[in-house]
């Protein structure tokens, strides 16, 4: 069975280690925060300037001058630092962020990612995504394996304008986890009750299979 969004967020949350600085992209990645064990001491960074992001505010705590990168009202945790955009991107571009988790429209077998533009159809802009994939020490992409009409989004070559070239460390989908190592894409986890043949049918990309293949759960 492919994983639900919640199951996927729960799986990806296990990749968040104690003592790290993490930037979560908007959309599905933001769900990950809900599944991180309370024992994990992680600090969330937002590209609009918070290091030590807290939860959403109560009605009394709402402050128009305190938002996250999705423009939502938020709070900060004790020990937070609020910085300007130059400093926020110094953290990101300078290699100081341990992990970023981003959504993707397409990922290909070379570790390329596309998630900011569909020519002629949609132009949102890359925002901080290009900086994050170029600068973070580890780049996890989480996304649906196929489009609503069943086409593979894990490709031989991305068809959409790239966000980053050879930048993805690993990609988690509702079907599988692939890790990029030495220019190769390796299947390391597969959802329960999905056969390799089923996965291959849904995946345009060529990939190797890890000798220690596990269940994605």
């Amino acid at each position, binding site marked *: 069975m492919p994983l639900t969004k919640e199951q996927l967020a729960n799986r990806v949350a296990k990749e968040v280690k104690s003592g790290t600085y993490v930037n979560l992209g908007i959309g599905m990645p933001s769900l990950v925060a809900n599944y991180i064990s309370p024992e994990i001491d992680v600090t969330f960074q*937002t*590209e*609009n*300037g*918070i290091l030590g992001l807290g*939860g*959403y*505010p*109560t*009605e009394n*705590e*709402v*402050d*128009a*001058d*305190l*938002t*996250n*990168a*999705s*423009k*939502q*009202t*938020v709070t900060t945790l004790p020990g937070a630092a*609020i*910085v*300007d*955009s*130059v400093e*926020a*991107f110094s953290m*990101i*571009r300078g290699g100081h962020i341990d992990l970023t988790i981003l959504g993707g429209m397409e990922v290909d077998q070379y570790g*390329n990612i596309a998630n900011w*533009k569909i020519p*002629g159809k*949609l*132009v*949102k*802009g*890359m*925002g*901080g*995504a*290009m*900086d994050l994939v*170029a*600068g973070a020490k580890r780049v996890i992409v989480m996304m649906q394996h196929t489009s609503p009409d069943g086409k593979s989004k894990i490709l031989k070559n991305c068809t959409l*304008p*790239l*966000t*980053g*070239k*050879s930048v993805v460390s690993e990609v988690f989908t509702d079907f599988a986890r692939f890790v990029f190592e030495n220019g190769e894409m390796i299947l390391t986890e597969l959802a329960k009750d999905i056969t390799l043949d089923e996965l291959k049918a849904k995946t345009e990309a060529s990939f190797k299979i890890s000798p220690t293949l596990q269940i994605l759960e």
Partner: protein
Amino acid sequence: MVKIYESSTEVIKDVVSGSTIMIGGFGICGIAENLLRALYNSGSDKLNLITLTAHIDGYGVGKLIDAKRVKSMIASYIGENKEVERQYFNGEIEIDLIPQGTFAERMRAQGVGIPAFYSPVGVGTEVAEGKEVRVINGKEYILEEALGADFAFVKAWKADTKGNLVYRKTAKNFNPVMATAGKITIAEVEEIVPAGELDPNEIDTPGIYVQRLVKGEFFEKKIERLTLKK
């Protein structure tokens, strides 16, 4: 040295049609709403804006876009404004989308006298098109140029009479860097205090970067996405 103006209308009087203007803010958090209102009322058009986003329909920069008075934009994310996307696909507005950190760093370069720098961001993407690519220590980088403007519209929390600025929380964002990169930096603030009242150690933008100062007439401080604890 900073000059203090009596009104937002007066302080932007020479921001004529065709001007290039940097506008601080992350979405609509920390935007100079009084200066933008005055700019809207001034009737200036063919504006070239350097702004992270297009704000939202009918508010801030959005209001200028609705009135088709924006000729071009350098921005990073315009996903929250439908009209700007429509004008873009219709060829009614020029938009140069650039990575957010590159956006910040190019303005910082302008402020600090660096004409160009090598950047790791956007290598192998559309962003690299037409730019010099250089391998340094085995890794590819692209050359990015400084980005300046005729005016910078900056919103701060407090100023003193020397033009020193202090921002509040994440309303800071791009305001300090734009203050350094505008030929004429205009700061709109919620309060102006006498020189000596702000702690010298806590100044975010030293007065040397601020040419004009005005106390904003009215702060609506809209919230883009009010989200509450469940």
